């Protein structure tokens, strides 16, 4: 597949995401009977008079036929015009632009930390042999499952309790750009992801240790650590790399909770506030940005995977990879 077709496919996927999200939200909103005028005029329980309601309806084009409203909305989204926030009366793009950096910093740091934890645990766990090996493997497995399912809001609260309230090492709120304030939110986000990536990596390492290329290397007289670092790890890292794109999506989900818990500004906070006030343009804009980010990150993960993959460029690699990814999510 040429690089252009691949890029075109990715772009097409992003456009499809935009179309599906806009359509679902637009029609679901009207089906649910929610009147956007209410949100424009100060949210549920607004006391606005009839004149103000009529004025707002014509200002936001809500008095036009439904299909016209839909097409207008569609054209806006496809030309990156996200409209104005109902509640804050500011352009959605501006609001999101102001918050995006903080969330990306959080998510990228968390993904990096998750990789460091997962790699260290997986490589150390394979070092232990015999009875000790079985004990270590059991403990690591239990730890990984628990870490993966642990809710961010609870893990974060426990970390605040231990490292902020009791030990006083790190602040519990992270206003501003102080690196110390970033520590607890990043750790909270990273631990569940590390559990997930660790499971995938350890499965890969076990598989690699039993594979013919490991036997061949051993027969050549390569040391165990050389086999691990030169051969097995590259093999084991592949599914973890391709799943990092998917993990990044769950990190953005987690950011909603973590930003609320640590009082940190960001896209997640914006999305949450807009959800509670039913500020639809902001919600749709944030969801589109998240979807776009996900597409960009999975594309990057794809590229990295091509670089790391030690196998010759063959046709069946893609299917093999998808199958592995699928198996890991299940």
């Amino acid at each position: 597949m040429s690089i252009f077709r691949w890029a075109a496919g990715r772009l097409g996927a992003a456009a499809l995401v935009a179309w599906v999200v806009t359509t679902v939200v637009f029609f679901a909103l009207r089906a649910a009977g929610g009147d956007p005028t209410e949100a424009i005029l100060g949210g549920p329980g607004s006391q606005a008079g009839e004149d103000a309601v009529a004025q707002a309806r014509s200002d936001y084009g809500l008095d036009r036929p439904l299909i016209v409203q839909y097409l207008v909305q569609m054209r806006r989204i496809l030309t990156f015009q996200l409209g104005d926030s109902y509640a804050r009366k500011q352009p959605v793009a501006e609001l999101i632009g102001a918050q995006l950096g903080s969330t990306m910093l959080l998510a990228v740091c968390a993904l990096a930390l998750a990789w460091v934890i997962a790699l260290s645990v997986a490589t150390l766990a394979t070092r232990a042999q015999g009875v000790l090996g079985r004990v270590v493997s059991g403990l690591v497995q239990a730890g990984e499952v628990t870490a993966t399912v642990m809710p961010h809001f609870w893990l974060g609260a426990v970390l605040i309790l231990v490292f902020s309230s009791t030990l006083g090492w790190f602040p519990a709120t992270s206003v501003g750009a102080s690196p110390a304030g970033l520590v607890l939110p990043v750790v909270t986000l990273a631990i569940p992801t590390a559990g997930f990536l660790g499971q995938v990596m350890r499965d890969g390492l076990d598989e690699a240790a039993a594979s013919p290329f490991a036997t061949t290397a051993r027969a050549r007289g390569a040391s165990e650590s050389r086999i691990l670092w030169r051969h097995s790890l590259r093999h084991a890292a592949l599914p973890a790399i391709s799943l990092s794109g998917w993990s990044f999506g769950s990190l953005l989900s987690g950011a909603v909770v973590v930003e609320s818990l640590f009082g940190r500004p960001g896209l997640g906070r914006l999305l949450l506030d807009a959800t509670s006030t039913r500020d639809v343009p902001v919600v749709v804009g944030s969801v589109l940005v998240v979807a776009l980010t996900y597409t960009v990150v999975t594309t990057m993960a794809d590229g990295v995977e091509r670089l790391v993959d030690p196998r010759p460029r063959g046709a069946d690699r893609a299917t093999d990879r998808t199958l592995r990814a699928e198996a890991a999510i299940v």
Partner: protein
Amino acid sequence: MTATTTRPARLRALGVTGAFALVFILLMVVAAVWPTLFAPGDPDAIDPRAAFTAPGLAHWFGTDESGRDVFTRVVHGTRQSLGIGAAATAIGVGLALVIGLLAGLGPRRLDAALSRVIEVLFALPSLVLALLLVAVMGKGVTPTLIAVGLATAPGYARILRSQVRSVAGSAYVEAARLEGQPALLVFGRHVAPNTLWPLVAIATLGVGQAIVWVSALSFLGLGALPPSPEWGAMVNGGRVYLVRAWWLTLAPGLAITLTAAALTVLGRRLGRVAAA
């Protein structure tokens, strides 16, 4: 799954960990159906003099700001948390069944169209998708439950579709067709059981995940609200007193984590049993 696998062999495939997880989940189900068996008290009984009592013999998990017993509340919250998780999963799996079967057995064009939409929705993180739906439907227990159900549907549909495809294209289905068995019989005898058994495993895992997401929405103040003993709402209510009374946050959060972990272990073991 072969016909020769016997019941005891299946139980053994659960393993010690799987058996522990199963017992834990069964206890949780009993607590959901009959909470007074474990905690006879009233979860809403107020006792201001006993407010903020630390965990001890009288109050296993301590008491909250109005002196309500946290253990009693966690036990009584099981019904809501487990029930909401199961209901959300039922919605997700139900919708996925329709979509997955249509895509898996329907004409090629329909499959292509549905697959694209499934892929797109799968690309959106579930909690973000759930927030989008809550923004549309409004706050409350029922909207969050439906939102989590709908948000998890693309994942299930994706797995179901490929499962249906592989079963429908397998040699034994072809053999049954060549024998001249009617299509409905082939579906009922071969396609349905071989598709649904793996689904049981995945849905078990899914209930654990749904409990975490629903409680996250309650924690964010979009689902069940604090007087209710729903676990996420309890963590939300306790977070104000984190330093003064850590047990208010710790106990319900531990219940969520342990339940989700047990369901994950059980789901994986069931998956292995299904494959055996």
